[in-house]
């Protein structure tokens, strides 16, 4: 670890990271190594990227923000809260359609979705949460969104959407592949091909603080470290070489 570090962050040897709910498992694992190596504690706040972006802008609590899409990072940037030159893409993800392991719904092509017998289609809020927005864009592209609308059950974040599919076999839903990988009670019934949908990129940046701004971005650099990238890959993310 860098010895400069402790001096620069004399007030409290910890950082606060606001991160998209879908990054929960991977970051918790990454944090263990980071905390050990850097002798610095990480406080996480996980929620939908949209909720976090608004909190980042409205408050002075976040040191880093990790968004599940570029749009909400743009929002934070428009509010001039990003430390210059720290914004970077850290990983990418893909979407899958999941059903309860007891569900009989099968899908060979996505257009069939409109004919399938299920009660609700669970997804993160398609108007606000990145996972939902990505999925909506894809379904619109496939021209099946309008037929799906009456069956949509929106959730506040992608993990809540998954929890609903886990609890009820009559509900299917769309979540990130990485979330589906964490669930024993659901199965993937369709993988949305990466070339048919917008790039799902996780964007990270250091946040400007009115007081107590940390003087380094070790955390962001650590995310592109091979050790961290290996953990991302193990969780099903596609790593991306950082731009900086």
């Amino acid at each position, binding site marked *: 670890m860098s010895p400069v570090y402790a001096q620069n962050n004399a007030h409290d040897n910890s950082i606060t990271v606001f991160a998209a709910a879908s990054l929960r498992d991977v970051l918790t694992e990454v944090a263990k190594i980071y905390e050990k190596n850097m002798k610095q504690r990480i406080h996480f706040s996980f929620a*939908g990227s*949209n*909720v976090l972006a608004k909190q980042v802008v409205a408050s002075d609590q976040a040191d880093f923000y990790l968004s599940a899409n570029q749009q909400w990072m743009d929002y934070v940037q428009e509010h001039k809260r990003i430390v210059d030159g720290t914004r970077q893409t850290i990983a990418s993800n893909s979407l899958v359609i999941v059903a*309860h392991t*007891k569900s009989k719904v099968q899908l060979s092509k996505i257009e069939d979705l409109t004919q399938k017998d299920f*009660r*609700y289609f*669970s997804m993160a*809020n398609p*108007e*606000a*949460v990145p996972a939902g927005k990505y999925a909506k864009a894809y379904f619109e592209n496939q021209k099946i969104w309008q037929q799906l609308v009456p069956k*949509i*059950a*929106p*959730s*506040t974040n992608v993990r*809540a959407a998954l*929890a*609903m599919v*886990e*609890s*009820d*076999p*009559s*509900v299917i839903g769309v979540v990130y592949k990485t979330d589906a990988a964490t669930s024993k*009670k659901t199965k993937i019934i369709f993988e949305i091909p990466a070339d048919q949908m917008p790039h799902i990129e996780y964007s990270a940046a250091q946040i400007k603080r009115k007081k107590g701004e940390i003087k380094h971005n070790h955390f962001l650099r650590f995310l592109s470290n091979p050790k961290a990238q290996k953990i991302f890959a193990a969780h099903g993310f596609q790593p991306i070489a950082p731009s900086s």
Partner: protein
Amino acid sequence: MSESLLITLWITLKVATFSTLLVFIPGVLLGFYFERTHSRFAKFLSAVTILPMVIPPTAVGFILLKLFGYDGILGTWLSAMDIEILLTWKAAVIASAVMAFPIMVRTSKVAFEGVDQKLEAMARTLGYSRVQAFFKVALPLAFRGLLAAAILSFTRAVGEFGATVTVAGNIYGKTQTLSSAIYTAEQVGKENEAMVLIIISLALGFFAIFMTEMLSKKSSKYMRN
């Protein structure tokens, strides 16, 4: 008022009304029991019924999701009878009823505290059974307080969010209530819409509390104090 607003308001009132109906009778009976009995068992039971008030609503939601989920104790049983609960307005009723129950019990207990037990004792000496004394003496005398309890339970049900959104979801026209509509409007940046919903909530809440204040003002001359 727009049509979508009316639908949300209608669902909210429907859910809150059914939850209040669901908790009213058990709440009154338990409130009476807790006021008149001081056994350890009563205290234990009282603590259990208060739990939803002191634990996070999201925890209640999660527990309900597990209970009513496919593998859950109640879920298995209900799905055998072909009854769908999750993501329906019934789930919203159950969640808000669980959250409103402690208020119903506590406020009923307070209502019975105000009833002079001597009057019940006198009724017993005049030949009333315990049950008769409850229905003909305690209940009528506590009536205002019990009505206030029902109103407070209703407002709790109207405001419930954490538990409801977990089991009933946030489906517009089906399970979206005032509180989840406010949350959604805020999420998607429709601030005007959120404001209108908030004003309705304020009006509803004010009216309810004002009613309970009026009820407590005119306490009967047969009440203690």
